[in-house]
């Protein structure tokens, strides 16, 4: 695993939420090897089932919906997760059959972690599905269980996907609760602008000793550096019972 600072969608979102979190993430804080969180089981299962459905549909010459009928949720999901899985996969299959594009499993490999042009950091773009269109243009599909952010083209996942692909792309946000698809297209000039902006933001924080102030908000509970954030008061239950705090 590279030791370069890694810019993920979380890092990029942090740049708009809390300057301190962004600064610390860029400088390597909160980096985790492996992720034991159980909560990624459901989205991971949905993505895998949709990829498999595309692959089977193309191999068998049937519709994605026909292939998705055979999708089974992993056995360790709860009833609520299995319900969400079934609804999401069926909704996606209907979306997929209504849209153009051919699926090639190897296209995911075009989204490895990419080193920045300065060699100072790398970007990581999580990509759910990639479809090929005419003239070899790629469409990245995000399989989401929420509404698309507005504007979609500014969302961190879109920005990083465009930079990682190193080519113009169409990004389709698929809300698998409703089947609503929102699209953004990014051409080469857009990519260059986004790349320059990312470079400026990251380099403004990388290796800079002076930490900015935190901006506490609803995002604090997911923050990797919360424990050492200066906005957090530190004490113990024992001390509070005794009538004080530090």
């Amino acid at each position, binding site marked *: 695993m590279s030791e370069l600072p890694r810019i993920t969608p979380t890092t990029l979102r942090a740049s708009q939420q809390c300057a301190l979190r962004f600064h610390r993430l860029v400088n390597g804080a909160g980096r985790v090897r492996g992720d034991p969180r159980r*909560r990624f089981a459901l989205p991971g299962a949905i993505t895998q089932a949709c990829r498999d459905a595309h692959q089977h549909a193309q191999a068998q010459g049937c519709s994605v919906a026909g292939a998705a009928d055979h999708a089974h949720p992993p056995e360790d999901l709860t009833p609520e997760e*299995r*319900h969400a899985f079934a609804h999401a996969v069926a909704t996606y299959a209907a979306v997929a059959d209504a849209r153009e594009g051919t699926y090639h499993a190897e296209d995911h490999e075009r989204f490895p972690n990419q080193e920045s042009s300065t060699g100072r950091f790398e970007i990581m773009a999580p990509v759910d599905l990639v479809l090929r269109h005419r003239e070899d243009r790629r469409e990245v599909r995000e399989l989401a269980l929420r509404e698309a952010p507005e504007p979609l083209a500014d969302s961190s996942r879109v920005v990083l996907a465009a930079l990682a692909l190193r080519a113009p792309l169409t990004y389709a946000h698929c809300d698998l609760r409703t089947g609503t698809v929102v699209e953004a297209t990014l051409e080469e000039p857009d990519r260059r602008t986004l790349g320059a902006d990312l470079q400026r933001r990251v380099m403004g924080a990388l290796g800079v000793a002076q930490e900015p102030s935190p901006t506490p*908000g609803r995002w604090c509970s997911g923050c990797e550096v919360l424990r050492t954030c200066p906005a957090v008061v530190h004490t113990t239950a024992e001390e509070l019972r005794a009538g004080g705090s530090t």
Partner: protein
Amino acid sequence: MTAHPSDDEPRPAMTPRSHPDLAVWAGHLDEHRRCPRQFSNRIALGIPSPEPVPEAPAASLGKLTHRELEQRHERWDAHDGVALLSEPPAHHAQAVEAHVRAHLALCPAEDDARYHGGERVLATRLHDLQVVVLAIVDAVWEHPDGVIELRDYKTGAGAPTPDQDAAALVHALLGRTHWPDRQLRVTYERLADEPTTAELAVTGDTIDAALSALTAHVAALREGRWEARPGTHCQWCDYRRSCPSSLAPGEHPS
């Protein structure tokens, strides 16, 4: 798709990602108490609602009123005005206006209190419990007698008083850690029906009660106690169709 045979298998306890601390928001304690299974679905497992669920009308109204009051406290010249600063949907505008009128009669600014910000995030790490406690306080006031008041707007007709509400205990604890040398009170500004305030003076007993509630909550999360507690809240639950214990497995009330 096939149903899985073992619907009541044990669920995993909450496992924080990068460190052993749990993040607990003030509202979590009551949410977990109401239905641990729903809490597990929403907070521990992060299962999005499979379908968009209409927000309860009272919850929508509450958010609109909070937004309006926050804007008024950012623009003192407009604080006492009649016209709304925000633009709530037409069907909620009258109710928001009524809440604003109620607020104007209850706002501590009338008593020369100093405003220390609204929608303020307070956070405290309790090392021995391995927990970071968080709350968003609607308004923080400093009164001329030195008392710090943490104020929450309550827009529902059946809103609790602070002495009935675990979230108020958490606010009290956060107030104690952020202003350790000051007298404190937690106030619920009740804007529905008869506008009034309900206050909880923060004492050593309050802090003990807060720590007991917090310790029990954290233990339940770490032990993975997620039993369903069906009730009237099932009709607004995101998981009403898939929860084996749901009392309202059909459509949402419109």
